[in-house]
């Protein structure tokens, strides 16, 4: 049996296949747009993310390491028990240099038992050997160029126009690429939903005019939260960044963190 081919027929078939291939991205983009539209962000109806630009700032000089923020966050957001934290507190203990050594300081010990949720155990270093000791609250750095968003293969995690970096848990495939890509260790794979989780700035609260749980509960006012697009003249946020020299974490990675810190030490990473 011989099959006959002619150029016209072959070209027509090739054309059809090409048209099909070209139509695919259009269909995909349309589907993505629809899915974005229905993304579950826990925001109330009528909330317009383009009218806000949320920012959280942290004053490391004020943090007392009580860990209430980490605990409140776990409760507010149903964060699974175990080593899963959307926010946590680190304790830094920098010892004095050994006598005779020409160093400015000795060792740096860092710990964060249970994310600092229940405070910290007694300092393992005798008081007279401590040069400096301080606490640093940590959370998602709300990067301008978030590597976690960049690597998500399905676009389940995205940067909202209001600055929050969110995850659509109904869409996330749980590949954990974003967990690997976050330089700050701010993401984890939930053992309950098997999807990526992270700080949402308590999106369900801030979109209803409330503060994030960690900010609300902080007794030392070490966490300052506000809306850059709707700043009041005496806004604590404005006061914070006008009166402090601020720093961000791991600036060399080019992620453009928006979480500003006051009173950071070079030892903090």
């Amino acid at each position, binding site marked *: 049996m011989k099959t006959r081919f002619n150029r016209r027929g072959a070209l027509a078939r090739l054309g059809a296949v090409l048209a099909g291939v070209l139509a695919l991205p259009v269909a995909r983009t349309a589907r993505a747009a629809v899915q974005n539209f229905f993304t579950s962000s826990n925001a109330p109806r009528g909330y317009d993310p383009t009218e806000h630009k949320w920012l959280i700032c942290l004053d490391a000089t004020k943090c007392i390491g009580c860990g209430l923020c980490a605990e409140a966050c776990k409760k507010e957001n149903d964060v699974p028990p175990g080593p899963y934290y959307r926010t946590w507190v680190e304790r830094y203990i920098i010892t004095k240099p050994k006598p005779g050594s020409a160093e400015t300081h000795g060792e740096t010990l860092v710990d964060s038992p249970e994310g600092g949720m229940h405070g910290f155990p007694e300092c393992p270093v005798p008081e007279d050997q401590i040069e400096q000791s301080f606490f640093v609250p940590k959370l998602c750095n709300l990067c301008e160029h978030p*590597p976690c968003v960049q690597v998500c293969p399905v676009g389940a995690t995205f940067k909202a126009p209001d600055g929050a970096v969110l995850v659509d848990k109904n869409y996330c*495939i749980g590949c954990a*690429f974003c967990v*690997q890509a976050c330089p700050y*260790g701010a993401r984890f794979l939930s053992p309950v939903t098997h999807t990526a989780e992270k700080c949402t700035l308590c999106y369900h609260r801030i979109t209803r005019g409330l503060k994030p749980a960690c900010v609300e509960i902080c007794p030392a006012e070490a966490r300052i939260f506000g809306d850059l697009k709707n700043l009041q003249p005496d806004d604590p946020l404005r006061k914070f960044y006008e009166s402090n020299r601020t720093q961000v974490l791991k600036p060399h990675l080019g992620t453009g963190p928006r979480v500003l810190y006051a009173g950071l030490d070079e030892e903090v990473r």
Partner: protein
Amino acid sequence: MITELTSTLAEAIPTFQGYVYPNEATLHPVWSTLIVIYPYITGLVAGAFIMASLVRVFNVKALAPVYRLSMLTAFAFLLCAPLPLLFHLGHPERNYEIMMTPHLTSPMAVFGFVYAWYLMAVLLLELWFDFRQDLVKWSEVTPGLQGVLYRALTLGVTDVSEQSVRLDMKMEWILSIVGIPSAFLLHGYVGFIFGSIKANPWWGNVLMPIMFILSAIVSGIALCVFNYLVLTWIRRKTVDMRCLDTMAMFLFYALVVDAVVEALDVLHRGFAAEEGFAVLQTMIREKLFYTLNLGQVIIGTLVPLLLLGSLQLLRRRVPELVRRRMIFGSGAMILIGVLAMRWNVVMGGQFFSKSLRGVMSYKMEFAGQEGWLTSAIIMCLPFVILTVLVKLFLSERLPTSEPSAHGSSAV
């Protein structure tokens, strides 16, 4: 009993030295053995294909007896390449989203398309063009279901005139040429998945895709050597020594280039000694001591280099049997070494905290999603598929159109 239990528990619970971020203190790393074998399998595909294209594109006639075997090897492994990725997902049932709504800045999303392109447009097509005229012949002489299968695989194109066969050859050549960059792209992209993670100093490295491609070529050729020798042994046939020596030669050269680039990477890291160098040093000295120094460097590189290198110099003086054993040994060791390299990259990148202040320990699980049993099964699967493919398409009982150029005559 209780002491035993506690000691087992203590081993099962990961231990940390120094400080690791609280989210990193999980029972096992988020990527484990499955993600180790994922680049391993993909690399074997790319390497086996490059090996096959030496025959088609570069016209290395000596390798003709292993052409079909290498192509089928590449195909069998390619079919299994996405499995480890699929099984490690938190939601495997949503995997199709990678293809449906890909996020194009993600290396993982684009990998899906590179994979599909490679499978559909390169490997399957090239295999089809290569086997088509034989399939026509086989469908006529084979009774029963197998004959029906051959007939179906011809896709109705049963023209075996000289002109049509010439077209097949031409298409194969074109596809091989397209295939080489595609194979590079396929595995380069796997390297890029790791190389693009700037948060991780062990991974974030421009050399990563290049190292992955080179080690892929090495491992692919080694796999073809391994498969060829095992198949001839099973079929009690004589080994085509010219073919085997040529494979050994290419394996040696590929290994030299691979070893040089990997050494360059180590040198560069040591010289630049950037932030986090201290923690990387701890890893090389402690966490990856055996897999890196023994597995990757000694077993995977130095010993095979020595064996294959000496064969290049003294080929004529070494008796055939010894030569065969040396080449087989080198191939097997390289396969172990490249697996160790994948382990060192994937697990090494997760043995230290991104705070660069601490390291984690990890004890492999046996069963379960991330256990090594799953990985071992997935690793065996391509060999099972290959056995079926060889039985179907490299059967000794079937006549082939090009007896001098295809595996079935020699194997």
